[in-house]
């Protein structure tokens, strides 16, 4: 039985009809056609579906749509104009931090959180923070370097 769920997505108020068992990733992808949030494992390990919920990264596959009622959600499509995300995108391209692009949206949301929360993070800390986002293509070196590059830029 579908019921309406109201939440804010990328700054816009939205009401979506969804089955209670739908997860947030499904609501975003099927309900709002925001397909930048990718589904990898649907059990909270791979991190591909990481989005920002009320200012913090969250697994969109572990959150029932109903639990997102009233939440403010930001997906990879919602960061245009964000200075940190702009710097990360530039750094990801420069450091070849993506290949197939499938894990990339989740990586970017996690990376942005690292930049804002841990301005002094070193490489070991960045790797630890990334442990919840799996990438099968890059071997992580480019991703780690991209984040370190933006951290260094912001430290001046």
């Amino acid at each position, binding site marked *: 039985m579908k019921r309406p769920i109201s939440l804010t997505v990328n700054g816009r108020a939205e009401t979506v009809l969804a*089955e209670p*068992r*739908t997860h947030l990733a499904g609501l975003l*992808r*099927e309900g709002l*056609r*925001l*397909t*930048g*949030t*990718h*589904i*990898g*494992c*649907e*059990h909270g*390990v*791979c991190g*591909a579906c990481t989005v920002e919920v009320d200012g913090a990264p969250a697994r969109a596959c572990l959150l029932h749509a109903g639990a997102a009622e009233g939440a403010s959600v930001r*997906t*990879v*499509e919602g960061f*245009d104009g964000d200075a940190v995300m702009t710097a990360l*995108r530039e750094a*990801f*391209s*420069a*450091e*070849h931090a*993506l*290949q*197939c*692009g*499938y*894990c*990339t*949206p989740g990586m*970017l949301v996690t990376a942005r959180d690292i930049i804002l929360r841990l301005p002094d993070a070193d*490489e*070991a800390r*960045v*790797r*630890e923070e*990334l*442990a*919840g*986002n*799996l*990438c*099968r*293509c*890059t*071997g*992580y*070196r*480019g*991703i*780690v*370097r991209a984040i370190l590059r933006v951290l260094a830029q912001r430290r001046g």
Partner: protein
Amino acid sequence: MTTASDRPSASEGVNRPHSHASKTGKGVGASLRRKEDARFLHGRGRYVGDIAVPGMLEVAFLRSPVAHARLLGVTKPAGAQDRVFLAADLPEIAPIRAVSALPGFRVSEQTALATGKVRHVGEAIAACLASSRAEAEDLAAACEPEFEVLPAISDMLTARAPGVPLIHEHWAENVFLETRREEDLSDLDAVAAAKVTRVLRTSRQSMAPIEGRGVLAEWDTRLEQLVVTTASQQPHVSKTGIAEALGLDEGQVRVIAPDVGGGFGYKAILLPEELVCCALAMRLQRPVRWLEDRLEQLTANANCREHHYIVTAWADREGRLLGCDVDATVDSGAYSSYPFSACLEAAQIGSIFPGPYILPRFRYHTLSACTNKPPILPYRGVARPGVCYAMETTLDALARQLGLSAEAIRAVNLVPKEAMPYRNLVGKHFDSGDYKEALRRAVALVDVPKVRARQAKGECVGVGLASFCEQGAHGTSVYHGWGMPMVPGFEQAQARFTPDGVLELRVGLHSHGQGLETTLAQVAHEILGVDPARVRLVHGDTALTPYSTGTWGSRAMVMAGGAVAEACRQLGERALTIGAALLQAERGEVELAGGTVRRRGGAGIALEEIARTWYRRPQNLPADVDRGGLDVTAGYRPDPDTGTHSYACHAVVARVDVETGAVTLEDYVVVEDGGVLVNPMIVDGQVLGGTAQGIGTALYEEMPYDAQGQPLAGTLADYLLPGATEVPDIRLDHMETPSPWTRFGQKGIGESGAIGPAGAILNAINDALAPLGAEVFDLPATPARVLAAIEAARR
């Protein structure tokens, strides 16, 4: 983990040759940033799961919960008879028969939905349709299959034991194929200074791209054509396979591969699920979609790498190999998958076991065992990671017996550069390279004396090496002998100018992360001078591109790179002719330079203007102009086509915690030679990513099965993939020995990184454990296996 920032890294250009970096910084040899990045970084990639069409039905499969059983029947849920389809409901799908012409190969018939028997856990039994996946899963859960459970073959070594049940009952035994090379080695015991025999096992793995498989099938009533959007590395081969299985002509099938979220071989296979979706779309005249979930991928499709070896090797006092005797078994699973067949892996072991070494005498026996597991698929490197693991750990065992260093025993056995091109005793034809120099550099880059000093103080730390080479882009002359459904031949590319002067390239193979939109634009720029920003690559659609066997076998840059270069060369000739006419010059007086046709040393006319003239101002063309126009399709094949050989040496420093069995990689160095690199940044990415996957093979990834054939890792919390904390800051050093056989001297290198890690890491672990008298033989070297090895040595 050591993450020293003072070390040199590839992006700082250690020994990076620049002989082919083009003057513009955009052609062959340039680390050009990728054209495809922008869409991925903004979440605008378009993968099969992102595509929804009106009226679409979703499929969930009822899958076998048991490994081996007679399927007595399936009761469909009441009221849902027309939404649940069994094999008998879809007789229009012919079984998948992936044959090999190798003598003795037994052919399996894989029906798209189980017929009569199920032969592995996860085998599809029924397709259940609903307007959402969740409702389709509800339907699948309400189906009632009835089984007569049979004993399962879970361990490949028991496949031909007396009294075991036959998986395919008309076969004489549970074996797809046996291959052998006989040679009497009985005299070697008397003359060898060292002899070792080792028994080794590698685990069954899941390739685990983060995006699973997925397919959306639609019937186009106007064109009377099946349009299949599928996550595929080889859309044209999928098209051929679908047409054959459904009895359509190939013009009635169009396969579109959109952005593909990682492949590694997993998406180079025709799936039963694809055939079911196609048949349903035709039957129901509705779009039908199936998206594989992680449970399906891990359990129904854990399908690669499971090998068992008994290796005996003899060496003289200096460590020179006198001979090897190899008995190899590969768990090929229950069926032969299309197009690579069930024997590609095992039968290849014989020809690739000698690796980069001079092996004077060799006996082998290989067995492709049929078991109650999903069919084997070729994963990055195919059989090489297992073979390299077997050879490299055997070499170290010989070195320990002889009191030689790991470097010394490799140095005396590697094919020397003076011998290139070199043909080894099983006919592998190496094109070029300095294998010993790669070894020397790798050893120099890791601090071996420091490791030895730490060992002297009692630290459980070790250093390990692995040398190997990788045949890539091997073509007709190699594959026709396999007699598989697919033989790669001439790769074709189309190059044309559009009326606004944009250069459009069309190739039939497909990118699943390799960045072909960028690298093929670089090749075009190298030939025509067109800015890569003004080059568009069209790929991933059989209706728009020339036929290709696809992206596998480290072939894309050699084959499509060569084809695009040739098509652009011919297109350039056409443009020169038109340009000469417009400049009122003789054909011999003009040249291509900087995206223009110009009189030598004089004024030029832009290629854009030439394109505009051809398409929109033909009144300005002379009457005798070449009527082929600005549109060329050209074919390419290297000569000879036996394949390029990239090569590498991996060197690892590993620390072992003897209390917990945990292994930490303190340093990881890769010295690699891929010939001329079209885009060094992208090649680095391929090597790094492959190496990370190899680290997973060495230390983490394992799909265990119980005696009943039940897979025991159903989530990514059980099936462990390496994360950012498990993969060290790998250091790369490139050499550049051009292949004499390819267009720019490039070599196939996409799979290389995955080949070396298991050998190098296990050698490092065993070097660390040597003072304890312990040795780990089986992959992955989990803490439990390391502790068991230490415990066994204590007893």
